[in-house]
């Protein structure tokens, strides 16, 4: 059996499941309010005392986990909060017992935070529930499982995991975490990622996992497999061993420049959707930000982000990246990425519909705010602007003229910006790849969006499992357009990069090098792997293989051709056996 959730802290693990049982229901028996208030007071005081002790302990430890300190500190503040106390007292006065009153008051406050529609604040709702739960349990005499002394390696399996529980846990023994609830930004996810524990959250179906059985957790893909056959268990162990070995091998590629085996310098940039991913990429010394997916600033928010909010984010990137390119792509929403605050209608054929630059050109008032913000940030570093989903020359011209309008406004306001800010476009619609010689004359750089290009060339929705076998970036039809785009950019003398899953696919990588691509933009976690793979590719040989690939008639033909030319060392990095488990 294989379950699918969200990978919240990367890694792979295989260990016995430790299923954490749910705590007892709190009884809502009515009692005498006076006695209950006293019971509450004592429990609150004990709680504060315990948290203070824990805080002191944590501060003493040499490797003080600052996320943990902040959390304990906040929980103590919540426990001490008079607004929270008033809420509890209110329920006690209505006749509820102290523990039930605590749970109710905590739920009220948590719900208020969740209704604000801000993802950061919604996560804090969990903190309030947690403080309430701990307080109520302490009054009921129930203690949460003790994870501080574990006898063997385990993967924790739980409905949700209290960060407090994890913060005192014996983390050397906890090989993985699997929860049904939670998101990538929940406390547990952040803590686990800080501790380097592979974690999958938001995973339905975990109740089927039995305590003590072997679980294979792939927190790269976000899956958990269980009820494994002996053969699968063996395979799981091999995968973990290989994974650990490779992780160690990749250490030396964490902060170096990338070269092919015959010393051709290749730039490896990062794709990011928030500043935390940018920080991670900086640690890996990425050659710049090749793609900032700004639509994530717009999603899950009750209103559109203001110019000032956007400037703050873009400027911090421009400053932190000290002259390395920071490529900001204007919003690519619609299709699979809806934005509530734009009130877009659902469309029958969203990927071919009203999205990305099409929305921006139709609603220039929204577009202008983003363009102004990007321009203002350009005064602080090497900021570049990139338009997504361009399908014809007229769209590009319109986008550029709105950019000119933004510049004019800023000049009139005496706001500094880079007058020569590089303007680029995504090549992801087949027409632009076919006409890439024409487009190259109008922009400063190209970035090939291989995900969309593949789905448009092959007319295969990349989110539809039923056509997944058609969607393949190794299809010679896709490859020819990519090669044409790279060639035309070279002839026009403009840089060309590729951002998309293809850049992280070891099979495709050698072909792209062979086509002459010198710039890749990948997810931060892939950077060391790509550098390592590049060091194993010989440019001259890759050119020969790439020429032959263009003459193939099917993706299978291409895959067989490339597979046949890879060295054994390189082939070790193609992990295609993982999917066989579960």
């Amino acid at each position, binding site marked *: 059996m294989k379950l699918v959730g969200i990978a919240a802290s990367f890694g792979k693990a295989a260990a016995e499941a430790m299923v954490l049982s749910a705590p007892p229901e709190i009884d809502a028996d009515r009692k005498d309010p006076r006695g209950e208030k006293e019971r509450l007071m004592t429990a609150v005081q004990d709680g504060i005392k315990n948290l203070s002790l824990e805080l002191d302990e944590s501060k003493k430890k040499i490797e003080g986990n600052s996320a943990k300190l*902040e959390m304990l500190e*906040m929980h103590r503040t919540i426990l001490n909060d008079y*607004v*929270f106390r008033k809420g509890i007292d209110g329920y006690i006065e209505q006749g509820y017992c102290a523990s039930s009153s605590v749970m109710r008051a905590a739920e009220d406050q948590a719900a208020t*935070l969740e209704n604000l529609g*801000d993802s*950061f*604040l919604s996560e804090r709702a969990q903190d309030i529930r947690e403080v309430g739960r701990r307080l109520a349990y302490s009054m009921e005499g129930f203690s949460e499982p003790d994870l501080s002394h574990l006898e063997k390696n385990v993967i924790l399996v739980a409905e949700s995991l209290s960060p407090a529980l994890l913060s005192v846990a014996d983390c050397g023994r906890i090989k993985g975490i699997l929860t049904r609830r939670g998101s990538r930004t929940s406390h547990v996810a952040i803590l686990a990622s800080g501790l380097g524990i592979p974690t999958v959250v938001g995973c339905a179906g975990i109740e089927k996992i039995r305590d003590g059985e072997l679980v294979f957790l792939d927190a790269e893909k976000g899956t958990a497999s269980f009820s494994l056959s002996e053969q699968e268990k063996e395979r799981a162990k091999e995968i973990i061993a290989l994974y650990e070995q490779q992780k160690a091998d990749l250490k030396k590629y964490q902060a170096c420049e990338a070269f092919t085996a015959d010393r051709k310098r290749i730039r490896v940039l990062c794709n990011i959707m928030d500043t935390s991913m940018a920080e991670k990429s900086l640690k890996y010394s990425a050659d710049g930000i090749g793609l900032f997916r700004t639509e994530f600033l717009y999603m899950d928010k009750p209103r559109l982000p*203001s110019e000032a909010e956007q400037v*703050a984010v873009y400027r911090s990137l421009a400053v932190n990246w000290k002259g390395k390119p920071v490529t900001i792509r204007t919003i690519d929403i619609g299709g699979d990425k809806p934005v509530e605050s734009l009130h877009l209608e659902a469309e029958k054929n969203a990927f071919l519909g009203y999205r990305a630059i099409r929305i921006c050109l139709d609603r220039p008032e929204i577009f202008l705010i983003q363009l102004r913000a990007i321009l203002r940030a350009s005064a602080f570093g090497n900021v570049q602007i990139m338009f997504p989903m361009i399908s014809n020359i007229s769209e590009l011209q319109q986008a550029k003229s709105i950019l000119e309008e933004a510049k004019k406004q800023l000049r009139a306001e005496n706001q500094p910006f880079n007058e020569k800010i590089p303007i680029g476009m995504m090549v992801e619609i087949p027409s632009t790849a076919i006409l890439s010689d024409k487009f190259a004359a109008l922009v400063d750089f190209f970035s090939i969006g291989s995900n969309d290009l593949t789905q448009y060339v092959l007319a295969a929705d990349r989110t539809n499992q039923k056509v997944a076998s058609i969607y393949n970036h190794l299809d010679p039809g896709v490859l020819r357009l990519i090669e044409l785009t790279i060639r035309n950019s070279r002839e026009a003398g403009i840089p060309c990069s590729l951002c998309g899953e293809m850049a992280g696919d070891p099979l495709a990588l050698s072909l792209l090098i062979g086509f002459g691509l010198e710039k890749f933009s990948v997810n931060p976690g892939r950077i060391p792997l790509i550098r390592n793979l590049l060091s194993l590719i010989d440019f001259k040989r890759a050119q020969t293989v790439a020429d032959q690939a263009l003459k193939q008639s099917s993706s299978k033909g291409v895959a067989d051709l490339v597979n046949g030319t890879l060295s054994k060392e390189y082939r070790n990095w193609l992990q295609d056996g993982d999917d066989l488990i579960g």
Partner: protein
Amino acid sequence: MVNCVITVKNPTGIHARPATELVKLATKFKSTITMSHDGKEADPKSIISLLSSALKAGTVITLRVDGEDEELAAKRICEYINNLED
């Protein structure tokens, strides 16, 4: 009574950590303190009150401090909010 107007400048606003610190700071003073914006009022002595007022980047806050240590309290709180970075 002291009144002043401050704008939240740090990109992530007054989220968990800054709110915790702000409560620590505000509870040191005896004065009554309110932070109002867009018709809502927050008490910086309560983390619950602060978080539920969603003080984001760009929020303009009117700070009102009333009591024996109002001058110092207003000064410190303004300084604190102005110096927030992340």
